[in-house]
């Protein structure tokens, strides 16, 4: 008996223990992706390794190609998606930076690709641990961005991601993030959805403008200043705006089909009567929630807002979530060199002229440095003071 078949039976029991990267690969398989391009980089590699195994064992009916760089990985996905095939790749860190040009091409060409990025710090100095600067650097490429908190969310986001990206009102690519090692290489219990339910939730890709050899077209060709260049950029922005409604609808559909509710662009945790709160994303939000529970036990009126989407940026959702707060803190596990935190900047911009609560920015956990319960207690304490500013957390004195 073939190994793949045995695995399927285990899957149908609807639970498994797997790493984030394995969960993502299972999501890609369930999405019936038809094309995968692969170039290895730690800590992403085990995603495309798992997919290679699935293709080799006939568990996944996809064309799998190994390319010579991340730039080519995205170029190959661009071409296959344009041929009307649901396509996938994954990367991290410097690989993502090398892909930067093709990210603009994929979004600009309106191709609903889904890619996984395992967030890893950028050198120098060399470092392979968790930090979100790599994807924050891609916030202006026209890709939607989701930051996952669990292995389950990483799997489910692949399925929701294709539904959102392929919506006729959106037609933009989406990247789904996992924190390096904390999700990518750590095993958690995962519920694997049934294939029939997934097929119902995620219909086949129908790309209206796919390459047709009998009817050749020019794709992304030369457009002079008086051609529709500005109009195309404006239209992309409109679609990014439209994606908010689509995200709400798709997460709602997902909750009804699979009984797991991701509540749209942000998650509000114990925010009902909160007086102050912290905004965080990824796995740091989990530690934050733990500390919120601790502080609540002590009688503090505190909550947490977890950013699931960074693009489109949930400005209206944040404005409404903070409307009854006295102060808010923003935690960035990334650094915008020469400016303040990426999220802190966006939150301040979203609240400008609409809310006058103090926004305190925190930079923490760079290069995978632990962000501990005591660090969160510090951040909540500083946030509560409501004096604003930007603070580094747990930085040692260097003599």
């Amino acid at each position, binding site marked *: 008996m073939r190994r793949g078949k045995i695995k399927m039976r285990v899957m149908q029991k609807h639970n498994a223990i797997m790493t984030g990267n394995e969960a993502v690969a299972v999501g890609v398989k369930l999405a019936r992706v038809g094309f995968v391009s692969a170039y290895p980089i730690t800590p992403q590699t085990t995603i495309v390794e798992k997919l290679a195994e699935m293709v080799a064992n006939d568990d996944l009916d996809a064309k799998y190609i190994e390319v010579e760089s991340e730039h080519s990985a995205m170029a190959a996905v661009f071409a296959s998606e344009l041929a009307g095939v649901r396509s996938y790749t994954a990367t991290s860190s410097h690989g993502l930076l090398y892909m930067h040009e093709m990210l603009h091409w994929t979004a600009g060409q309106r191709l609903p690709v889904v890619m996984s990025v395992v967030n890893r710090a950028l050198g120098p100095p060399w470092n392979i641990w968790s930090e979100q600067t790599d994807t924050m650097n891609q916030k202006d490429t026209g890709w939607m961005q989701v930051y996952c908190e669990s292995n389950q969310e990483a799997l489910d986001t692949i399925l929701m991601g294709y539904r959102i990206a392929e919506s006729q009102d959106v037609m933009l690519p989406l990247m789904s993030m996992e924190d390096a090692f904390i999700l990518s290489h750590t095993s958690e219990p995962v519920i694997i959805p049934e294939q029939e339910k997934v097929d119902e939730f995620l219909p086949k890709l129908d790309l209206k403008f796919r390459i047709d050899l009998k009817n050749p077209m020019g794709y992304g*060709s030369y457009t002079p200043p008086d051609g529709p260049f500005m109009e195309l950029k404006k239209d992309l922005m409109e679609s990014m705006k439209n994606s908010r409604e689509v995200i709400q609808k798709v997460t709602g559909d997902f909750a009804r089909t699979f009984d797991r509710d991701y509540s749209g662009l942000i998650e509000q945790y114990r925010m009902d009567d909160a007086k102050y709160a912290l905004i965080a994303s990824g796995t740091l939000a989990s530690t934050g929630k733990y500390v919120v529970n601790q502080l609540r036990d002590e009688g503090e009126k505190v909550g947490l807002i977890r950013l699931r989407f960074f693009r489109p940026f949930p400005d209206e959702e944040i404005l409404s979530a903070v409307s009854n707060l006295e102060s808010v803190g923003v935690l960035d596990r990334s650094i915008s060199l020469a400016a303040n935190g990426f999220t802190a900047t966006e939150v301040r911009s979203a609240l400008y002229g609409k809310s006058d609560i103090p926004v305190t920015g925190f930079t923490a956990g760079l290069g995978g440095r632990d962000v501990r319960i005591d660090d969160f207690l510090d951040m909540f304490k500083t946030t509560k003071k409501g004096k604003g500013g930007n603070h580094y957390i747990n930085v040692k004195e260097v003599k």
Partner: protein
Amino acid sequence: MIMAPIADVSSRVNHTDSWRIQKPIIDYSKCIRCMICWKFCPDACIDVVDGGAIAAPSERTLKMEAPVIDMDYCKGCGICANECPEKCIEMVLDEKGED
């Protein structure tokens, strides 16, 4: 519906003649049909045409194919004029940028 950058016409419609300040004029009475201009044109907009010219330095040359510049795409870089060994291509001011 979204807008995607897809063109149902050939990129041949994208004329680049308006990019031009000067245009090359070939003096066929001096042109020896060496085709060095054709080889050097960075925009591949010099065609080799049978009976493309009415003048030539000799009866024998007149029967040969001649270089003809496609003024829809010539950007007026002047490389042809610079490379011509007979100095028979002259760059002249082309204020309208059109042929």
